[in-house]
């Protein structure tokens, strides 16, 4: 494997933003996640939970709620606007002002015909969903206090709205409130404080479930307007609720970071048809802070909150044991590289939502947040893209760095949704991987740049997560969300022999089981057969001259190899040399002088920057 001089970089104080809202589309298996900085991320659950799309945020556009209507994604926020996103070009398509003050939540009926938004001024506004846009239809009865949460009855005839101290049920036909359910306040000191119904769910059997700031999950009879049962779940707030599609299970997220599951069970096992009751069953503790957003898929509990991590916790009674699905995933970092490295010049580029840091090189213009960025190996070029544009800069650095903006070619202007950007080793070409599973190659002259060709991937099923051009062979290596590796010869315009062999034999099971995608691909300048890959938890050198590992061989064998005598060692070694010495790696690149730059961002440092969690009594403290 060889030895490297390692630069361990820990001064990139990247801080992911808190998760505010979440919406799961079970038809397309896409999860939309809204963060506090206004960014919306889309995860493809069928493609290894890959963070497929990121729509960067904008200053002053906090998303409070998300809602899928078929393939369309809507959001609403405290700025009082409803936004529909253009998921192809990864930017907001249009924005509509609701004229009701800050919007607390947005909800769509099962039929997909209407959107309801709840506003600070006490109104629930219904919007009709048209083909290209949405149109305001009417207001429901105006209430005295703000409306925090909404839920449609599956029939679409009624809406339950949670507000301060009470729940209202509206008839959507007439717009009249039919029931008024009073929610009890907390005991003791919180008696004087209004209770906030943070979340509400209207089930098809006319049961209403509410979660409130007094820590209660309450089950109501929506027909009679009576309280059926109260479950005191926490001493703090119940912030989010999510119901499974078959309405047999329900989860509630709390300020303590716990998620409590309720199941609709019959009291006796043999008479399944009657006496069903919501019973508190499991408790999950995957977060340290508020759980603000929840989704309950068929197989897993998906949660996110203040501690910025997205957690997919599989329900063991719904998945097969020891499969990919049965493993719990914590997605802490974005699935793309935020660090650029000029290998020859030894410069590092850190990407933040609102600026780049190469000793604080360039501010992004306008309010759009930066989507991706790259630095050429020679250190002469810098490229970044926002929602609206891709920008290329020429850097001149002797002692003080100067930045010159390059007026790009028309074709580059057309590049909108760029996931990945990278330069070839001689800094003459720029590659961009776009969301349509295609790779765009741009050649750069010293002063101008021109578009060369678009490569469309044949197996378009999985997103590429990292791409790189080999500096000597000019082969393109692409690694995908399903952990597959391809090598494409740019000369022959076909997959190389090695790539075919790899596809034929298949990758090792443990390699496929890894749950973070490869975020960068690099090469060893001294040994052209070495490909260097890394994900959050390991880095790997693929030696193309060695045999590929069989499924029965040990994948992680570096430690055992070391203890073996030399002849045995060569017999046992295989192409994948994996090193797990580093944790929470954001970027890793091998410089020309064979020193390795590792940018780490320990989770503990991220945690340390979070606000203190709510106080909880711990045993024996």
């Amino acid at each position, binding site marked *: 494997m060889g030895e490297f001089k390692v630069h361990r970089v820990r001064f990139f104080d990247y801080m992911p933003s808190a998760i505010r809202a979440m919406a799961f589309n079970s038809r397309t298996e896409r999860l939309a996640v809204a963060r506090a900085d206004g960014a919306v991320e889309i995860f493809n659950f069928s493609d290894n939970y890959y963070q497929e799309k990121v729509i960067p945020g904008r200053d002053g556009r906090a998303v409070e709620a998300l809602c899928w209507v078929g393939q369309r994604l809507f959001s609403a926020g405290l700025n009082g606007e409803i936004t529909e996103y253009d998921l192809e070009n990864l930017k907001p398509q249009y924005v509509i002002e609701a004229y009701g003050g800050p919007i607390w939540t947005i909800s769509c009926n099962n039929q997909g015909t209407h959107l309801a938004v709840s506003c600070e001024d006490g109104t629930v506004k219904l919007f009709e969903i048209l083909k290209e846009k949405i149109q305001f239809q009417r207001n429901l009865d105006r209430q005295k206090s703000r409306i925090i949460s909404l839920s449609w009855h599956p029939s679409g005839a009624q809406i339950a709205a949670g507000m301060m101290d009470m729940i209202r049920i509206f008839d959507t036909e007439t717009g009249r409130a039919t029931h008024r359910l009073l929610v009890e306040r907390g005991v003791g000191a919180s008696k004087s404080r209004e209770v906030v119904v943070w979340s509400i769910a209207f089930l098809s059997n006319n049961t209403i479930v509410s979660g409130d700031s007094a820590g209660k999950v309450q089950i109501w009879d929506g027909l009679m307007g009576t309280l059926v049962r109260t*479950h*005191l779940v926490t001493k703090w707030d119940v912030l989010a609720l999510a119901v499974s599609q078959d309405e047999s299970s329900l989860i509630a997220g709390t300020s303590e970071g716990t998620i409590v599951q309720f*199941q609709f*069970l019959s009291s006796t*096992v043999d008479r399944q048809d009657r006496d069903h009751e919501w*019973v508190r069953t*499991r408790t999950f503790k995957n977060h340290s802070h508020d759980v603000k957003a929840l989704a309950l898929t068929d197989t897993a509990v998906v949660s996110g909150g203040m501690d910025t991590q997205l957690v997919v916790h599989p329900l063991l*009674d719904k998945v097969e044991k020891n499969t990919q699905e049965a493993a719990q995933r914590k997605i802490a970092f974005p699935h793309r590289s935020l660090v650029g490295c000029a290998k020859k010049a030894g410069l590092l580029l850190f990407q933040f939502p609102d600026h780049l840091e190469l000793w604080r090189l360039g501010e992004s213009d306008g309010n759009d947040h930066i989507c991706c960025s790259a630095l050429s190996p020679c250190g002469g070029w810098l490229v970044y893209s926002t929602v609206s544009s891709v920008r290329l800069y020429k850097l001149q650095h002797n002692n003080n760095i100067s930045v010159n903006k390059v007026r790009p070619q028309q074709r580059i202007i057309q590049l909108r949704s760029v996931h990945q950007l990278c330069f070839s080793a001689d800094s003459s070409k720029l590659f961009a991987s776009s969301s349509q599973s295609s790779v765009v190659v741009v050649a750069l002259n010293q002063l101008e740049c021109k578009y060369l060709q678009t490569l469309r991937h044949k197996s378009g099923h999985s997103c590429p997560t990292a791409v790189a051009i080999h500096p000597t062979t000019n082969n393109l290596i692409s690694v995908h969300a399903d952990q597959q590796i391809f090598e494409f010869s740019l000369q022959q315009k076909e997959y190389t022999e090695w790539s075919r062999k790899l596809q034929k034999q298949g990758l090792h099971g443990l390699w496929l089981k890894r749950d973070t995608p490869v975020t960068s691909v690099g090469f060893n300048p001294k040994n052209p057969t070495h490909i260097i890959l890394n994900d959050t938890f390991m880095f790997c050198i693929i030696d193309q001259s060695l045999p590929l590992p069989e499924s029965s061989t040990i994948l992680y064998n570096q430690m055992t190899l070391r203890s073996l005598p030399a002849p045995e060692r060569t017999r046992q070694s295989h192409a994948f040399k994996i090193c797990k010495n580093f944790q929470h790696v954001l970027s890793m690149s091998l410089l020309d002088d064979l020193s390795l730059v590792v940018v780490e961002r320990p989770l503990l440092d991220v945690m340390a920057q979070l606000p203190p969690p709510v106080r909880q009594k711990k045993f*024996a403290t």
Partner: protein
Amino acid sequence: MVEHGDIRVVHRGGSKIDFRQPVITNDSRFLLCASGECVKVFSTSTEECIHDLQGHTDLVTGVLLRPSNHLQVYSCSIDGTVRLWDFTDGILIKTYVIGCPVYSIYASANHEGVIFIVVPMLGDKRSELFQLVAVHLPQSGDQLVESRELSAVLSNVSSNPADIAFGRGGEYIASAKGLQLKVFFFKKQKSYEFSLKEDNKKGGLNTFTCVACHPKDDCIATGHGDGKIRLWRNFNHKKEYTYSTLHWHHNAVSSLCFTPEGTNLLSGGVESVLVQWRYNQESQRDFLPRLGAAITHIAVSPDGALFCTSHSDNKITIIQSCVKVSAVIQGLVKGESVQTDLIVDPRSKALVLNGKPGHLQFYSLQRDKLLYNLDIVQQEYIHELGLEQFEVVKAAFDASGTWLATVEERKQKSAELEVNLKLWAFDEQTQSFVLNTTISAPHEARITAMCFRQATDSQTTMLVSTSKDGHFKAWQLATPAHTEDEGPSWSCDFVGTYHGLVPECCCFSADSSLLAVSFQEVVTVWSPTSWELLTTLSQPPGAIRDLCFGRLSCSKYLLGTTAKNLLCCWNLLTCSLEWSTSMDISLLLADPLSENMAAFCCQAGCTDLFVFKPSEPRPLFSHKAVCSGTVTRAVFAPREKMLDSCEENSQWLNRSQLHFLTQYMDLMTFTTKAEDDRLMASSKQLVIDDSVAMTPFYLLLGKHRHQQQENQDPMSSLSAERTPLPQSSVAIKELLQTPAHVLPSTSFLCSMFVQSLLISVTDLSGCRENNKKAEEEMESEKEEEDSEQEMESSIVRSEQAAVSVQSAECAAPALTKAQVRELRRLKKLDHSWLAGLLDS
């Protein structure tokens, strides 16, 4: 128990009452619990023991109300039988012979005529594997029924009764063992198994410790080693089962119990706190803390009004509606094991031994009742597993009972051994012991033995302690030189060693002129006044195990037992070995009031007792196999009143009584036939009116009433016509007092009842004859009752005779008083003569 001449080994109370879950009867008046080889019936209101259901010949392992008759109770035992009792009258109804040891018993109303028991797999007695089997109880009139037809229900179950429970009306049964929970549905004949991982990330133990099923819903509550309680639902699915977790206990949950309506779940553990969880509102819970010792079992009365908890200190607490402790039934407190010797307090004549943790208990042998606990350690006891805390290991009284010496020690894994020697003076005013001196670290190592100088006349009291550190020390009470208001305290007077050997035993001679200390194989004899080594005695091989001086006429003898099965008797006058014999003696002790010595020998898993005088070669008394296992604790307790038995082999029991603890920590004693008879005689008055629970107060009253009745007999002849009250009629008494299941048919009773109401004008003797016949028939049906009952019925008979006389009076009103008296006298004569004739 082996009958031996006219001396018997009997239980003297103190058996474990916390061994198995107690049972509260349907009317909440009685509490039944397994206790050693019998089942005890306690009154829940007065805490008194009402009956001992005796009959089993080995440990009773389960008590269970019969689902089809709430006045009957099943008990099962290691002796391989299941017995059915009538607990209100203490009558054995039936014995079912199973043929292999039974470890627990279950039944449900859904399975009529079937009981479920846990027996070893394959009938192997030593097997570690157990199975749950169903036993069809044959319908037979016989008292002893063989029922060896067992059909297996679940294999590989736990022998702990808490690990199996019937669910919702007996629809299913849940059994937990290790990390696995099995649920068996009877209707579908299908079982489901659920496993937990060995432990979770945080190091908790997931092993199941107990199981309880909700009475109405299909919900199984399981307790776990790390203190969690899981509530399982949907357990008729292989995969879609679900459970919720409740966590309050920080150590293993030892018992779980649902209330009869299923509204609450009770749990308890080593924390000594009873926790009440609202079913389906589990965040609401109530606590009943400070119950004194770890909770081992929880039971609830069928009406849900009473809870009772068994505790590891051999106590049962009865709790009213989870808020108020209404009664405490305290047996002889048993800690983990008794570490002190059995001692008799010379003042109160109470037995003294380890009690609650850190306490000494004073237990009245006469009344089989705990008097009080003396706090020795005087530190808060922390109810937590695996915590090493101070424990009393030695205690000794001086001859008059004014001084008590105690040794407490604590050994923590990493730390040094901590030893404290405390001396307590008896305070006349408070009638209890008051701490006088605390000597911390009296020796550098563990104290092996301790004794007071027995001299009653001498002014100086002396205590000698021996230790593993190779020293023995003498401690003396000394007044401080500078007289302040402090009283005298204890200080070290002398430190002795012998060739660096470790002293094991020490003993003062009867007149306190000699101190014998054994150093491994060597016995050294010292003068306690001059601390001069007088002589050494040795009989190798084998270290000395016990050392005793002879008393009274045998004071010249010193006896010792060695580890190499030797009993030696040295003559101190000649300083030579008088005699020795080869025996494996586990315990040797001397009777302080006579020359007698008792030696317990362990042989082939049993213990034999020999009582002998050191001067005589022949033992006074020997008793083979007094109990199984070795006896390591015994004591001679002086009698309150001397017996005057002159039979040779029971003379040794005249002055004092020998008590010993078996390996099961049962307190046993020896009684003579004469004593038994006297006890019988006193107990025959126990004719109890059913409506009153039997309390000492009642007995007192009852005796008084009885005397009154006797006094009234001559009076009634003076106070003219007194019609007999109907309830005093024999027939009614028989009708009301005899248990229903032993009564003859109603038609038979009816005629008798009617007859008893009739005023007999015909031939008196004829009438009497009739009654007699009826009575005899009844007696024949009550044959299983013991002699006690027989005597009772003879009393009844004489009363009945009186009744018939009185009824005769009513028929003939014309007679004068004198005539009546005369007639009565004649009739009485006649009756007694006739009765005598009939009886013979």
